[in-house]
């Protein structure tokens, strides 16, 4: 059995004022993209910091590729982007990267090469030679991302990587993370941007008040059904009966609305292949098909449902 990239066992941190987290057990395989979700003050950053060794756990343990978190061996495999940071304004982007390269143990030629590559990759490019006092918040965030990737880490811990970015920047970061994922990096993404998490992550966990409420693959937590929406013309209830007679319990048809001589139908299918068969049947019955789309369950709907009605300590006064 291969060693997990990230593993926590009953990981707890008690700050003594009700904050922190309790008994968090997670297992993330090498190459997986993991989304860590939760309302403000849930304890997400505390867990990320315990993984990096910046915070010592009160109890439990965390391991990175089998090495106890905080050890040099564990940190060698990590790249970390903190949630809130502001690099010194008197340095240039290249100097920040050169400094981090030295801390990662890279020699000068390799550091220069990697620095140029990363500056291009995060979209800073030739502005890397500018002092940081001229950088926008978004550019600082991109530089932070480049720093996190400097040591070519196996595990990338990102605490709100797209929080200060505009839509274009967010899209670019998402693409960069997709590339990292395709390179086999393990990504631990702590984010409020559920759309990003949904598009990128294989697995998610939801944390509230320091406890894991739910954990699993995105499909598992969403409990997705194979639903399709169709806009059809010349529809009669007889058509629905024919479909159900043909497919039996495997297909459920619901008529949603009538609109401009066309009807919206919702079909729940056993698998995607059935949509082709349903399509053929409808054409055979003389029904005109205008639009077909798969219904996607959204992570933000799930998130809202999961935490609604619960107390969030981040909102306490």
């Amino acid at each position, binding site marked *: 059995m291969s060693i997990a990239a990230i593993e926590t066992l009953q990981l707890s941190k008690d700050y003594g004022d009700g904050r922190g987290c309790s008994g968090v057990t997670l297992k993330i395989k090498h190459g997986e993209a993991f989304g860590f979700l939760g309302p403000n003050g849930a304890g997400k950053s505390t867990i990320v*910091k315990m993984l*990096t*060794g*910046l*915070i*010592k756990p009160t109890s439990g343990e965390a391991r990175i590729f089998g090495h106890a978190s905080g050890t*040099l061996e564990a*940190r*060698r495999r*990590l790249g*970390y*982007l*903190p*949630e*809130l*940071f*502001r*690099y*010194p304004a*008197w*340095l240039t982007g290249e*100097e920040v990267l050169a*400094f*981090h390269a*030295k*801390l*990662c*143990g890279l020699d000068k030629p390799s550091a220069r090469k990697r620095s140029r590559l990363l500056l291009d990759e995060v979209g800073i490019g030739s502005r890397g030679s500018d002092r940081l006092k001229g950088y926008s918040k978004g550019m600082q965030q991109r530089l*932070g991302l480049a*720093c*996190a990737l400097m*040591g070519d880490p196996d595990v990338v811990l990102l605490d709100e990587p797209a929080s200060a970015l505009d839509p274009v920047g967010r899209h670019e970061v998402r693409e960069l993370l997709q590339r990292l994922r395709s390179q086999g990096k393990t990504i631990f993404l702590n984010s409020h941007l559920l759309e990003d998490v949904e598009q990128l992550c294989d697995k998610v966990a939801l944390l509230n008040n320091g406890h894991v409420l739910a954990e699993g693959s995105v499909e598992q937590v969403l409990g997705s059904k194979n639903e399709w929406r169709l806009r059809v013309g010349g529809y009669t209830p007889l058509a629905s009966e024919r479909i159900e007679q043909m497919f039996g319990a495997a297909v459920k048809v619901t008529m949603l609305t009538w609109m401009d001589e066309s009807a919206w139908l919702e079909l729940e299918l056993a698998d995607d292949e059935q949509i082709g068969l349903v399509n053929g049947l409808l054409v055979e019955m003389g029904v005109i098909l205008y639009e077909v789309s798969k219904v996607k369950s959204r992570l933000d709907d799930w998130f809202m449902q999961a935490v609604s009605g619960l107390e969030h300590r981040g909102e306490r006064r």
Partner: protein
Amino acid sequence: MTAVWALTWKELIRKRVTMMTAVMTVLFWIAYWFVAAAIASETNSIVTTGIQVNVLEKYTISAMVLTIGFFFGAFAVAFLSIFSSVSAVTGEAETGVLQSVLSRPIKRWHWFLGRWLGFVSYGVLYGIILFVTIILICKIETGVLFEGIVLLKSFALFVSVVPLLVSITMLGSCWLGPLGNGIGMTMLFGMGWLGSTIGRFMSESMIEREGIKTLETITGLIQLAMPADALQQRMLGELFSIAELSGLFNLNRAHSYFAIGAIPSNTFLVYSALYTAIMLLAGLLVLRKKDF
């Protein structure tokens, strides 16, 4: 560690600490040269009137010039040491920079020691420049130059406050923010200076004997908590070889702030060295355990 050390130097240069220090130092040199020339001219006027000025008198004049120079020099070195390192830990943590650095595969004590070496080497270099220029200006104006070994000993004592103050300031910055730490350290240094000043007054018998025991205890305790000014007293003591020339001349005859009080003993020097080492070690231990 060398990367952190180099970055600390870059920080001190780029944040205009160097430029401000250089400008203020040049102003100090101008003022000091003027004062030194004014004091030395009194001696020269005595010479032109034909009265023989003995060596001891010339020596006393040069001692007075140097005491004034090092009085200000000690403040300059102390404040540079304090304010350069005042935000070493919490200042970095507040901006999130420390978190991205400490998550790298480096030992925490390496980072702390790299910063410490950066601040100390910078302060010591400034100390060399200041020490040499004060001695040179005095030599030009009074013609007195002390022996090399004496200069070396007093230089070592002059810059010994740099590691002392940087160690205490960096330890304070593990808990306090830059502003709180800066105020705290300035007050602590001020207390040390006050302790020495009271000591000077006591040695000049400007304070009545009644209650002097209590004052001695208080000043002793203050100097134990902040030995910086006492080290400067010892530096002047070494420079003027007061122990060897005891009874021949009295630098305290002017009854001023610039007078030299009781010279701290060798045991006090050992204590100061230990105190510096303990403060540095405490900083390293606190950083090792601290959550960020």
